[in-house]
């Protein structure tokens, strides 16, 4: 058994070496851990819960039946398309690396930065959600008043904790993610079991779950329904984590591909079960849609205030795990991009701690960038306290568009490379879709285009303006410097076997 593992590790290292990269990160994750990191970032207890009110407000109860399932259908296609690429090109750069070698280094550079913008949004969004939930709970426990300042301080402390755990090592983080996957399932089982047991006589009829035409917003229903899709679409983000941790996964061409796919598929099933029972427990949808936290309002109405508080604590812990995993994913993406010198001071962020085998500096850069984004928002709100947008809606819209555009670019380039005869059947990894690949890729791209437009129309236009501004900054950076100086992952192919061995020797006995 141990000999088999050693053999597999050697094969995985050789696969990585073919791209000119040394095995610097500790390869210790199994299939379940790879699944668990994406399942933890998707986190049905974070996205679907924190934006439950958004979904209900715009799409009514039908959002939970139709909206969730419709988004899941297309996300399953996107995940399958990404799994194919992860299996064919198994490097931690993932989206960026796929785009760079299927298209060109400049396609790769833009993909990396768009992915990076989405990742900042997702890390900040998740840990900010955690702080928004945890701060009032801690305030009532320790007798202080929860304000935007205390939320920001808690956000900073959370980031520091996540940074420390990630710095210490992938083994610890992987174990916590394994626990997190079971924890998510356990909480859904407790929640659904309690709702079935305690309010089985008060549940709405089943067709309430698929009731369309009722919105609690001032928009026409069709538009309101599309805006409400943000709830499901934001939940189904971050599953590229399985690809970003590919250089830490044993037998990644199969396991990481399954990790991406199954994390989405199981999140769809467990998320649907949870949303169905919570929605069927609604007693007053209009009041719930106006509540500060619609999810907790519905639970408290159905099960009582005490149980509502217990659920609130359980959900808050799930968000903590989600934030931990998202920093792991983001730091690996940053490490891989810096390894190819795509960022300012790249050599710093590409450095691997010889003691912990983690990209320690990249991890702390993630922490600083995420805190800076929330701090910026805090300052803007201090100057203009009458601002109407919510921080969470802004962060989630930025992350959805950033991540999905970054998911779409390599899919488009793969189709283009196939039509030009460059990417052929022999290049597919073990996990592929055969003849189904092309139609699934095309449908994925259509959905990405559609959803990217839907996420930035009013009332989320601020996210659209922010993304345009960020893109202009990228354009300036590209034209001013990187167009000439960025060599892309193609440069790593010039590394000799001796270079790679020398690099790997640094970590051998640590």
């Amino acid at each position: 058994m141990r000999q088999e593992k050693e053999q597999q590790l050697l094969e995985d290292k050789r696969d990585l070496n073919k791209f000119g990269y040394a095995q610097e990160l500790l390869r210790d994750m199994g299939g379940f851990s790879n699944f668990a990191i994406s399942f933890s970032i998707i986190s049905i207890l974070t996205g679907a819960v924190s934006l439950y009110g958004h979904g209900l407000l715009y799409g009514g109860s039908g959002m939970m039946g139709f909206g969730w399932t419709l988004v899941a259908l297309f996300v399953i296609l996107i995940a399958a398309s990404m799994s194919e690429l992860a299996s064919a090109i198994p490097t931690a750069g993932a989206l960026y690396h796929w785009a760079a070698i299927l298209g060109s280094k400049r396609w790769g550079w833009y993909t990396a930065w768009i992915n990076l913008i989405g990742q900042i949004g997702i890390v900040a969004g998740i840990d900010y959600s955690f702080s928004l939930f945890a701060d009032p709970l801690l305030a009532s426990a320790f007798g202080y008043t929860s304000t935007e300042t205390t939320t920001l301080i808690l956000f900073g402390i959370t980031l520091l904790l996540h940074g420390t755990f990630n710095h210490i090592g992938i083994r610890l983080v992987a174990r916590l993610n394994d626990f997190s996957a079971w924890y998510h399932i356990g909480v859904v089982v407790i929640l659904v079991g309690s709702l079935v047991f305690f309010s089985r006589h008060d549940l709405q009829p089943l067709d309430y779950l698929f009731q369309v035409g009722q919105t609690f917003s001032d928009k026409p229903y069709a538009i309101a329904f599309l805006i409400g899709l943000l709830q499901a679409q934001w939940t189904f983000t971050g599953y590229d984590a399985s690809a970003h941790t590919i250089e830490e996964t044993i037998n990644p061409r199969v396991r990481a591909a399954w990790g991406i796919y199954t994390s989405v598929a199981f999140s769809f099933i467990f998320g649907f079960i949870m949303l169905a029972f919570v929605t069927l427990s609604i007693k007053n949808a209009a009041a719930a849609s106006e509540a500060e936290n619609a999810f907790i309002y519905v639970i408290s109405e159905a099960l009582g205030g005490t149980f509502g508080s217990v659920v609130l604590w359980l959900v808050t812990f799930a968000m903590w795990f989600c934030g931990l995993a998202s920093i792991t994913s983001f730091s690996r993406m940053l490490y891989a991009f810096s390894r190819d010198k795509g960022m300012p001071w790249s050599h710093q962020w590409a450095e691997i701690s010889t003691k912990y085998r983690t990209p320690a500096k990249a991890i702390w850069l993630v922490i600083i960038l995420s805190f800076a984004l929330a701090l910026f928002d805090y300052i803007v709100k201090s100057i203009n306290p009458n601002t109407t947008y919510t921080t969470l809606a802004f962060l989630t819209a930025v992350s959805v568009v950033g991540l999905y555009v970054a998911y779409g670019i390599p899919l488009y380039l793969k189709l283009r490379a196939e039509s030009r005869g460059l990417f052929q059947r022999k290049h597919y990894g073990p996990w592929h879709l055969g003849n189904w690949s092309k139609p699934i890729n095309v449908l994925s791209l259509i959905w990405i285009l559609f959803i990217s437009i839907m996420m930035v129309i009013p009332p989320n236009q601020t996210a659209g303006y922010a993304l345009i501004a960020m893109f202009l900054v990228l354009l300036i950076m590209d034209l001013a410097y990187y167009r000439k100086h960025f060599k892309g992952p193609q440069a790593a192919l010039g590394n000799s076997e001796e270079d790679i061995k020398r690099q790997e020797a640094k970590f051998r006995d640590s």
Partner: protein
Amino acid sequence: MLALGVVLLLFTIGVAIAIGYRANESVRQFDESAHESFIGSQAEKGREG
């Protein structure tokens, strides 16, 4: 709408299972000797040149 919702739900589950089944088949039938690592058009052009 209930019937339509159930159809959508079952269709989505069916698609997920079908893709999983198709991928599992490809993993089982994978032939390493016929596989070639894709390292990019530029690198391949370079090697040919």
